[in-house]
């Protein structure tokens, strides 16, 4: 293939040659190339196949809107499908592969879809594949998806890393073309903190492809000078390769920076992409304008591209589009390209201008055909000729490239993402966005044309924003611009007469003009309906090139103005953002934080099996040699607590210090039972209700001093209870002087339980632990290890055994646990985990959130007498609601199978003996089950209608999901020591 690279000019470094491959074919490009410009320089005009008809497609644009030149970059875990070749910087070793073709790009079997195209119009799938319905998911959809499609993602893990970052500024400038640079420099000189984000590798925008001069400097040199000055301001941050993709509440913008997408081997210490959240006080949108393609037959044949893109490849990348070009234009901008082409030695066969009154451009040699249109382009994998209609006559002109200059659509997506509606301007022939919420538009994004006017617009909008913020703006003087072709507004050309071939509106989704006609004819003329009916604008390019043309064509078909048709809804993201960037560093080990108990390492040393409980890792059981099932370990741990003594980590229980002169009154209102008269040095079980009267949480609270309490909560509700208490203190009773501190993490807390516990503890605790000196429910600061450490000791029991909970500062937790294990060795102490803890509490009939499940009030659990007769407490009023005091409420009972070998599961339902297994016969359900080594069978706790008065009754336990039925007997929920003799031992 011949080279289309020009011998001189452009912003490519001819000394830095870069080797790359396309579909395995070796090619060469230069530093400064995009993949698209390098492919064009190598004469590779066919780069992909279209989505539905598999038509040959080439490079259409030179930017983010590219719908055709989508390729897969990289291999293995770094495979990235659907990469826009126009945005991909070239690097040595880049491997690009074309997509959606089989067996090869040049010969693609799927192109037969093109022959079937009369049957593949809009709505075709829905009309054709209606019956039988079952085949849709099994056959039609997979087949359609396989035949029509994009690149394929890899199943290999991505080897690269990503991160997120916050940034803050007074002024965010989106886009670093002439407008954006002028705005940013104005702000920088005014002393503001500025962030300039530009989606391209090199800032400068159209300054990099213009042949005009500014103050006598070429465009690129002028841009570089501005960038150098920006870099000299310490409060200015220029982010190249950063696409601002979304505008969110609070002036926060999302941007994705392609940090290392332009290198073959990314530095592993740095991310390949960085997701920025930019909090900006004001923003100037200098995003420029997108050139509209023209909708004629064959407007997708490789070799057809937008005029601006052709000019960029020519001037910036020094790539000629071909040998003989034509320019089809609706405005003056096409002449700038025609002039540049001629100067570069490319023959311009014709400039086809749709206007009758187009001016003559001095110096242009090309033939200008006025009041003319291109109705069709011809060619297969490359354009060969165009049909030009003028004066009612058709003329065929041989060309190898064609530029389309259909006018400009300001890039207003960001400005409209938060509900602002674009309005149609006849004067501009474009949709414009309003300035809203601290965001203003400048330059081509605001419909301004010409370098000088854009510069002025950037300065003006930045100055206005800075004044708003209290800065005194330092506006820049507009440079003297020479040689710029400033296109005057020209009416858009929607409907081109004489079209024979497929005239594409949405290239990426293969929507052509006839599809939109069909949509209107079939009643889907509303812009949102037409979008869904035809899929126009629904591809990954989100209709950047196609939406306005579709609106224009719908307007023509409906006989209304484009403004009346209106636009579809703008939403983030502006361009596709990788899942990697959205995930940031939060994957693998860093997916979510781990919350570790101070005894985590202690338990791990003793071989604990851990279970995730929220973010905590709790020790579940401690297997010993020879134990092959978890039940063996748990049964042993349970029996050892009942017979000897065990130690369990309960550090993850929520712990809250409640201080202040009104702490007693505060707790008295928070709990439904009385706390005002709790003596110093005593603990009490407390029941906390929700406002609606149902139980919220439970725990033990101890009075350490007159004005100081130590509350414990369940593990699951620790944060919720803290929030609830803060709300009560701040919003409900601000008159109470109470202060709260979460001390969950301050204390390593160990439950030490079993008949031999006192002997073990007494070896560590200095105070007298006799029953008389430290009775049941005593709670005091204690001295440990001969005064070397202070801790808190609570004589409370969850297991039903003689038990204590010892709290020590968390950093000393491991030492103290080790010391207790050592002290307990002669008494057979063993650690036990949460599984054994669960068995022990079920045997004792203690409740947890299995029972406190949001449907129970104190009386249901047998706590009716705990509810104090006091003036007020949270939940008091609602607790007396009729339904909450009515007979027949579920009540807590115990449950044992009649056959000790039988068992039942949590969640099973309870039926009266002999009742049919129907939900109508439901008497309640099983809330907790465990195998009880003490009882010798499975036992359960259940909430059963009037259960408290039904002890001894035989019932059926029914598991409808597993079809299990067990006969069982309702019992007291307390299976161990019902007289509480052990607690008081």
């Amino acid at each position, binding site marked *: 293939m011949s080279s289309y690279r020009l011998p001189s000019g452009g912003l490519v470094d001819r000394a830095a040659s870069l080797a790359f491959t396309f579909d395995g074919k070796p090619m060469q490009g230069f530093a400064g190339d995009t993949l698209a410009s390098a492919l064009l320089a190598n004469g590779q005009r066919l780069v992909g196949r279209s989505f539905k008809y598999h038509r040959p497609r080439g490079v259409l644009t030179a930017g983010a809107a590219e719908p055709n030149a989508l390729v897969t970059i990289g291999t293995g875990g770094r495979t990235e499908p659907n990469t826009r070749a126009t945005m991909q910087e070239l690097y040595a070793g880049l491997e690009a592969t074309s997509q959606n073709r089989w067996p090869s790009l040049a010969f693609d079997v799927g192109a037969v879809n093109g022959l079937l195209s009369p049957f593949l119009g809009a709505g075709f799938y829905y009309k054709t594949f209606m019956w039988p319905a079952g085949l849709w998911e099994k056959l039609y959809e997979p087949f359609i998806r396989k035949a029509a499609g994009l690149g394929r993602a890899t199943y290999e893990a991505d080897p690269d890393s990503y991160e997120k970052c916050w940034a803050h500024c007074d002024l965010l400038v989106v886009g670093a073309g002439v407008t954006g640079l002028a705005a940013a420099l104005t702000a920088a000189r005014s002393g503001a*903190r500025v962030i300039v984000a530009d989606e391209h590798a090199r800032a400068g925008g159209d300054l990099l492809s213009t042949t005009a001069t500014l103050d006598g400097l070429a465009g690129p040199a002028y841009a570089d000078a501005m960038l150098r000055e920006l870099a000299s301001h310490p409060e200015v941050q220029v982010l190249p390769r950063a696409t601002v993709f979304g505008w969110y509440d609070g002036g926060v913008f999302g941007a994705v920076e392609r940090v290392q997408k332009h290198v073959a081997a990314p530095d592993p*210490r740095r991310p390949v992409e960085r997701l920025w959240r930019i909090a900006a006080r004001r923003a100037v949108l200098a995003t420029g304008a997108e050139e509209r393609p023209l909708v004629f037959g064959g407007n997708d044949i490789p070799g057809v591209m937008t005029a601006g893109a052709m000019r960029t490849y020519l001037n910036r990348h020094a790539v000629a589009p071909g040998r003989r070009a034509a320019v089809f234009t609706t405005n003056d901008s096409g002449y700038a390209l025609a002039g540049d082409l001629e100067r570069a030695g490319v023959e311009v066969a014709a400039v086809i201008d749709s206007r009758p009154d187009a001016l003559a451009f001095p110096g242009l040699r090309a033939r200008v055909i006025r009041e003319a249109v291109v109705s069709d382009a011809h060619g297969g994998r490359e354009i060969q000729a165009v049909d030009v209609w003028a004066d009612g006559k058709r003329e065929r002109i041989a060309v190898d490239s064609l530029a389309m200059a259909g006018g400009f659509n300001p890039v207003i997506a960001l400005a409209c993402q938060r509900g602002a509606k674009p309005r149609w301007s006849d004067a501009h022939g474009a949709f414009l966005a309003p300035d809203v919420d601290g965001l203003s538009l400048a330059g081509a994004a605001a419909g301004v044309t010409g370098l000088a006017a854009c510069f002025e617009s950037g300065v003006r909008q930045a100055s206005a924003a800075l004044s708003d913020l209290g800065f005194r703006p330092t506006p820049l003087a507009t440079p003297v611009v020479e040689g710029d072709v400033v296109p005057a507004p020209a009416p858009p050309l929607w409907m081109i007469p004489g079209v024979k071939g497929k005239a594409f509106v949405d290239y990426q989704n293969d929507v052509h003009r006839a599809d939109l006609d069909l949509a209107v004819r079939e009643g889907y003329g509303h812009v949102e309906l037409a979008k869904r009916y035809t899929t126009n604008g629904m591809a990954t390019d989100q209709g950047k090139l196609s939406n306005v043309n579709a609106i224009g064509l719908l307007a023509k078909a409906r006989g209304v103005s484009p403004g009346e048709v209106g636009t579809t809804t703008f939403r983030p993201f502006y361009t596709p953002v990788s899942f990697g960037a959205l995930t940031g560093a939060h994957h693998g080990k860093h997916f979510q934080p781990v919350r570790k108990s101070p005894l985590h390492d202690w338990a791990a040393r003793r071989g604990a099996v851990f279970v995730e409980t929220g*973010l905590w890792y709790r020790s579940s059981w401690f297997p010993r040699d020879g134990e092959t099932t978890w039940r063996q370990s748990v049964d042993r741990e349970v029996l050892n607590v009942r017979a000897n003594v065990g130690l369990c980590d309960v550090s993850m229980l929520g712990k809250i210090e409640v201080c202040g002169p009104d702490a007693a009154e505060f707790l008295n209102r928070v709990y439904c039972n009385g706390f005002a008269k709790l003596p110093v040095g005593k603990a009490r079980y407390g029941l906390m209700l929700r406002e609606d009267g149902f139980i919220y949480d439970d725990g033990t609270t101890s009075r350490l001093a007159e004005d100081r309490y130590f509350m414990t909560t369940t593990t699951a509700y620790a944060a919720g209870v803290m929030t609830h208490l803060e709300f009560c203190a701040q919003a409900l009773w601000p008159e109470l002087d109470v202060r709260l501190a979460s001390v*969950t993490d301050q204390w390593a807390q160990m439950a030490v339980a079993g008949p031999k516990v006192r002997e073990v503890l007494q070896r560590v605790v200095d105070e007298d632990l006799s029953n008389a000196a430290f009775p049941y429910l005593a709670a005091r600061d204690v001295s440990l290890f001969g005064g070397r450490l202070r801790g808190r000791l609570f004589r409370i029991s969850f297991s039903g055994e003689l038990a204590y909970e010892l709290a020590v500062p*968390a950093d000393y937790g491991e030492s103290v646990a*080790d010391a207790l294990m050592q002290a307990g060795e002669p008494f057979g102490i063993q650690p036990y985990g949460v599984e054994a803890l669960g068995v022990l509490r079920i045997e004792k009939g203690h409740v947890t959130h299995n029972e406190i499940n949001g449907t129970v009030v104190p009386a249901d659990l047998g706590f009716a007498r705990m509810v104090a007769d006091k003036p007020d407490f949270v939940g008091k009023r609602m607790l007396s609601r009729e339904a909450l005091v009515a007979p027949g409420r579920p009540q807590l009972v115990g449950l044992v199978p009649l056959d000790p070998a039988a068992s039942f599961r949590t969640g099973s339902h309870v039926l009266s003996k002999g009742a049919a297994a129907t939900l109508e016969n439901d008497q309640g359900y099983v809330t907790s089950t465990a195998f009880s080594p003490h009882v010798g069978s499975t036992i359960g706790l259940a909430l059963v209608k009037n259960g408290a008065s039904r002890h001894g009754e035989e019932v059926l336990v029914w598991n409808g999901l597993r079809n299990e039925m067990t006969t069982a007997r309702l019992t007291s929920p307390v299976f161990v020591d019902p007289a509480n003799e052990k607690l008081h031992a």
Partner: protein
Amino acid sequence: MRDSALMRRPAVASEPVRCGDLLLEAPGGSILQLLGKAGATPPSDMSLPEVAGASPGLRNAGPGQWFVVTDRELTGPEIDALAARLAPSLHVVDQSSGRFRIRVSGAPSRRMLAKGVALDLHPERFPVGTATSTLVGQIGTNLARTGQDSFELLVLRGFAQSLWDDLLLMSREFG
């Protein structure tokens, strides 16, 4: 048991880590939470003679609440004496084990923290002496600026290892 070896084991057992110009340290010491009524005024450093020798720092921890941070580990009697002195307007809660202290220093500190902290850490917006409760990534912390290029984080002990690991990851590009 009275002669058992009692060892203080901090949540993260790590020597200081250097990543280029960035230094991550776990300075230890003591952390006391002072609880006052909303609107209470902070005690000035001068009013804390009990901890004067321990280079105390005072950190805002919400309305009427502060953390006192000392480099030296305070003794129980020292804490008691301080509590007695501040009562009844302020209650003292020892959080020396409950919070873990991480120091980040060096020129890239602000850039590193920006990967997890949503707050504007510009020295004019977050000057030396400022402290507040905020998130670092997914983990709640109390963040204080202790110098132009140095910050301290107080984090719940249980999350300390995760935060430490996250900070190392955030620092990687500077090393």
